[in-house]
């Protein structure tokens, strides 16, 4: 999910004070530790994603929001 999509969905249901906190780079090596990323998919990612992008395929972000 893109960050703007996340924020938009959260805002639409009524949350306020939506903030982004700690974030970490999420690369192919990190993906490999999760069950939806099969060995075949990881191999595909290593083949198709340019090496310079493989360490930052995505970001892990903490979002906070408050119900008014």
């Amino acid at each position: 999910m893109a960050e703007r999509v996340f924020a938009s969905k959260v805002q639409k249901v009524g949350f306020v004070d939506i903030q982004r906190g700690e974030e970490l780079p999420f690369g192919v090596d990190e993906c490999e530790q999760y069950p939806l990323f099969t060995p075949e998919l990881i191999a595909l990612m290593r083949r198709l994603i340019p090496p310079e992008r493989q360490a930052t395929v995505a970001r892990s972000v903490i979002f906070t929001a408050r119900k008014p």
Partner: protein
Amino acid sequence: MREHAHAGAQPSEDLLGQETIKELVREAYRAVVGTTTGVAGRLYDPEQLARLPRGAVEQALGVGNPVRAAGLQPGEVVLDLGCGGGIDTTLAAHAVAPGGRSIGLDMLPEMLEVAARHAAEAGVANVEWMLGEMEAIPLPEASVDVVLSNGVINLSPRKSRAFAEIYRVLRPGGRMVVADIVVDEDLPPEILTSAAAWAG
């Protein structure tokens, strides 16, 4: 462990694709056998890890540390969506004691059993386990102070519905703390059509 009828609105008719995604997620997570401390070691503080049994650490599959970000206070009621092996539920139970409680919700009964065992090994008693889905949280309106989620919202094929349910169960002034994966740039189409991407 309690299994509840949904206390909120009736779920609308589901689409085949949504059920397919849910089943993919169920099967993938059902097969998880914790054998590494790699995920937890990257995300949690040594002081947090020291409070947990080895099994909870090895089965951690979150993507962040929402408990650290939540600023939990004694007496608060916390709901951990998609609690998995129970690492965040257990840490939250420590943080809200005395007087508070931590509720772990998961759609897989086998994960709830594992999570309950981990919490017992960690010596926390102020925990409760519930079988259910984040799109139909089996709790009444305005019944919790904090909702935590760690790498779980992205697995839902109905994310807006999940957020609406979180909103419903929070008390006014309550807060949501969600750790999840965001993608800034397009990935190759072969990757975007994978099960992992469908769930994201």
